């Protein structure tokens, strides 16, 4: 697991996050210890009341104070129990928020290119499900881990004071505790890994069939597939029962211990009280001490049993942490640019190269300068590094060698084949580029991007919600929405990566028209494209070879 020396150990990373919420976690543990103390007090009062009633023949009426006190202890115990839950949960909530922020910060620092290498669905899963998987560890397991030591020690102390021989029973069990902890741990780990593998295999099978339902329908094979799904689940049941038979043994052992402790103590105390045992402290047992020892015996094992219940939380958190650390270990972007002191140039690449892991160098070395207001077409066969060139210009990634120089305060706009549509209103989607823009500015931008007619067609105008549960936009409309954002922004350098690749001719023509309007506003456009119409727009062409090198001749558009 620690093959990567730079990667922190998941346990340490979790501990560091726990340290950040030391206050709440300590409060949870303190509340838990208070529950333990209150339990001892409750049992002691119960035993004392019984002893006063039976041995001292006290009337119940005389013991009103003790009854009231016991009621008070019960209330305090309940409050402490609630406090433990609340404090543990608070720590967990805050830690999850912090972890999510840490991951998002890191992804932002990686930049769109390096972070974009990963499947966004998988990353989102990590940011949601995996972060949520930390809950049980911080909310329950960690506080319980401290209690599993403190509370049995407290109870052992009380029992030792009452009867050392009974304490010895518990103490003899004590060295066995780590042993059983290990057993439980192994059981849980085994349960987790084997079961997890089996579950994901089965889910994989199920999802595989669900994904292909259309094909099954077309071949009229749905009935057979349904029977097969059922069979697979049943096979999985038989397999996992084999695992469970062993895994449940460890918890059965704990259960056994708790039961046997009560039985052994009851019989020892009973025989002691009858005077059958004349060894050691047995002769000095009273109903009070005997009953109290009996009542405390199961409580001695209770924290351990709770810990065992939460053990899988630990495994889940460690698994999640391990995956997160892989992401966090990825080196972030260094400084992407240096200030450019030039009258006419907006951005300059000097002998820049870029390579992608597993693919080697994708572009460069090449030098490019973009001047204010010019239109540059980047052309070349697919795989020539046109996108990489734009990404370097945008500063989304640091060049491996060479430099990027930009005019200070340069505003950049970006547009690729998959424009971002956020879940929200049309206005939200536009304001993403200019949060301060007024409604009329938004309408103007839509107009310029040839989306004016869409705005008229929308039921609630700018407030119409887009995407899931709202209005769906076609690919061309989405592209023009992204263009409207460019119009809205004050960016003087606009980078476009195959902006018309997936559009039909009509829509393409409209987009080209809008791009002309953008250029007419005096913005510099750098367009990676195959389309003749776009190439024709350019004042200058930058041609790349299949190896990502600049073609010797920079062609003029009219050439």
């Amino acid at each position, binding site marked *: 697991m620690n093959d990567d020396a730079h990667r922190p150990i998941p346990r340490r990373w979790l501990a560091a996050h726990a340290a950040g919420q030391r206050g709440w976690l300590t409060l949870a543990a303190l509340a838990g210890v208070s529950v333990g103390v209150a339990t001892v007090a409750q049992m002691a009062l*119960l035993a004392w009341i019984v002893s006063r009633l039976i041995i001292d023949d006290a009337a119940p009426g005389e013991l009103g104070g003790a009854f009231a006190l016991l009621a008070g202890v019960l209330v305090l115990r309940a409050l402490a129990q609630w406090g433990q839950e609340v404090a543990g949960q608070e720590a967990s909530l805050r830690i999850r928020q912090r972890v999510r922020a840490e991951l998002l910060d890191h992804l932002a620092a990686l930049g769109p290119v390096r972070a974009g290498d990963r499947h966004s669905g998988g990353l989102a899963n990590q940011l949601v499900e995996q972060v949520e998987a930390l809950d049980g560890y911080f909310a329950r397991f960690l506080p319980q881990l401290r209690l599993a030591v403190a509370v049995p020690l407290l109870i052992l102390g009380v029992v030792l004071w009452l009867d050392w021989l009974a304490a010895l029973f518990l103490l003899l069990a004590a060295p066995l505790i780590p042993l059983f902890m290990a057993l439980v741990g192994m059981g849980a780990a085994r349960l987790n890994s084997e079961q997890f593998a089996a579950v994901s295999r089965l889910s994989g099978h199920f999802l595989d069939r669900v994904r292909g339902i259309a094909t099954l329908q077309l071949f009229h094979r749905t009935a057979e597939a349904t029977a097969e799904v059922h069979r697979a689940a049943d096979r999985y*049941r038989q397999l996992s029962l084999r695992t469970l038979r062993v895994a449940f043994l460890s918890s059965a052992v704990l259960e056994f211990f708790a039961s046997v402790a009560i039985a052994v103590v009851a019989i020892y105390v009973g025989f002691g009280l009858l005077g059958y045992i004349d060894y050691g402290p047995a002769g000095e047992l009273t109903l009070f001490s005997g009953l109290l020892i009996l009542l405390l015996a199961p409580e001695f094992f209770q924290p351990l049993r709770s810990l065992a219940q939460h053990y899988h939380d630990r495994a889940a958190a460690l698994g999640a942490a391990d995956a997160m650390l892989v992401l966090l270990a990825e080196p972030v972007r260094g400084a992407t640019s240096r200030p450019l002191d030039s009258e006419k140039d907006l951005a300059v690449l000097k002998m820049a190269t870029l390579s992608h892991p597993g693919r080697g160098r994708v572009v460069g070395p090449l030098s490019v300068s973009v001047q204010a207001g010019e239109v540059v077409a980047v052309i070349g066969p697919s795989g020539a590094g046109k996108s990489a060139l734009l990404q370097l210009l945008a500063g989304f990634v640091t060049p491996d060698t060479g430099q990027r120089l930009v005019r200070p305060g340069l505003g950049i706009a970006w547009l690729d084949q998959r424009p971002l549509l956020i879940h929200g209103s049309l206005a939200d989607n536009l304001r993403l580029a*200019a949060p301060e823009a007024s409604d009329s500015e938004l309408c103007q931008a839509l107009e310029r991007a040839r989306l004016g007619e869409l705005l008229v067609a929308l039921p609630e105008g700018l407030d119409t919600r887009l995407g899931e549960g709202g209005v769906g936009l076609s690919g061309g409309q989405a592209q023009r929405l992204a263009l409207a954002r460019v119009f809205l922004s004050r960016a003087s350098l606009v980078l476009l990566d195959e902006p018309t690749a997936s559009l039909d001719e009509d829509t393409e023509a409209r987009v080209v028209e809008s791009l002309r309007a953008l250029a007419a506003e005096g913005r510099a456009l750098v367009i990676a494209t195959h389309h003749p119409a776009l190439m024709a727009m350019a004042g200058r062409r930058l041609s790349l070879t299949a190896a990502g090198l600049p073609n010797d001749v920079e062609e003029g558009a009219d050439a």
Partner: protein
Amino acid sequence: MPEPSLRSCLAPWLHLFARRRRRLVLGTLLLAITHASAVGLLALSGWFITASALTGLALAAGLAASLDVYVPGGGIRFFALSRTVSRYGERLYNHDTVLRFLADLRGRLFAVMTRLDERSLARQRASDWLNRLTADIDTLDSLFLRLLAPPLVALLTVLLVAALLAVWLPWLGIVVAAMLLFAWGWLTTGQAWLGMGASRRLVAHLQRLRGQLIEHLQGQAELEAYASQGWHRQRIEAQEARLQFDQRFLARLAGFGVALVNLTVGLAMLAALWLAALAWQQDAISGAVMVLMPLAVLACGEALALLPVAFTHLGATRGAAERLNALVRAGKTRGMAGSEPLPAGPLSLSLCNVSLSYPGALQPALHGIDLTLAPGRRLALIGASGAGKSSVAALIARRLPPSEGEIVLGGVPLAQIEERALRERLALLGQRVDLFQGSLAANLRLAAPQASETSLWQALAWVALDEWARQLPHGLETPVGEGGRALSGGQARRVALARLWLRDPGLVILDEPFAGLDVDTVTRLRPRLDAWLEGRSAIYLVHQLDGGDFDPPGVSHVAHLVQGKLTVCANRGHPSG
């Protein structure tokens, strides 16, 4: 639409459980034995210690007293053992039951999903939706272990203990029953009611958060360019705050429930002790029984301990059931199959004024499509992505109902054709190729279950995959991996073509038949496809025809589809290529 009640949400699933009634009863019984043993162990131990103390005192005072130590001693040992054994047995047995439900649930839902139409399926192919589906199934299959058995067993335990105590002191039994039943009632209804809204919302919150995060990641380039990452982060954080608000509320509520159980059990114990002490003072019961009573009540706590958390989150189960119910309803609405057979040989096709609208879309996906195809002809339907070609294919394959218009296949209105006949006579190769986990042979036999090994090899030879397959160490038995991942895109496409070859359709719809194949392969496959299509009708869905090698063979006429409308129809005198 009024909210469906909790009972009507869960009813279909409870029905499914009811089929395994015997297992449920036995599992519940085992659980009850576990709790009863816990009560018996503690109560009998208390009784034994007190009786011993009293006897010991009497003996010390020189009185003649004796206590049978064997029966209670044996009882204590028995309970200690029965508690452990029944716990182990219960866990194993009940998990077996849960896993059986899992199989039932998956089977049933899969059967429902096989009846969904193209639109529902397209939505559900998203991995997000699939994850939620599995999570919902998991939520429901643990219904028995979380929400059915525990409250039942807790109720049984409470009633059993109260009845036991009532044998000695009826009043005491009633008081204890009243207090513990109050706790039981609060846990099963009060906690559920208070937590319902928040626990039902959790899945939606998580879903929304995931959606926003995907936006954030996929749109990172634009967000960074406009320096609006912080602005979008705030939106994400606002969503996270909504999630955490509900999570915090639920945790506090569940914690409250746990504390309340313990407090009520403690107070019930106290009441039992008080009443028992009064009775003992009046010599109505022995001292040992007096001690037994509060201890028996105390031991009830364990039976109630599982309820607070489970019922606080009842809304999550309800939400899962609602979503699955909606899926079942969607599966039921499809009733398009008729009973008419189809003629043999090439099939004719006509679409008359066919339109298709999706809910929420501004424009119809298809608008007034008129199209006829004579038997044996081959039509190329040309359009950009999103123009509606796949929708046309889905309509003809009866995987979507048209919003308007009529489709006639082989002279029979589409809706009246028998399902099996339609599937046998119509073949569709879509853009997506579905290969399944399993062997190459199994994937081919999907098209022809009875096909001999020889014909499978012939099919592979037809798509020029036989040499490749013969090199594989396991030949036809080679696993293709999940979704066919062990194969390249081109190989997967050829396997899909081979599947078509194993059938004898009268109309073949091919969506970019040569997509993802290299020139050499296409040059080999093209004449074979041409020959196989002889005597069948065909529709090709293509981006464009450029007269090159990748054009499908033998196009007899061409139609252009632009934004859901047919624009140009032209006959082609000569087959291209």
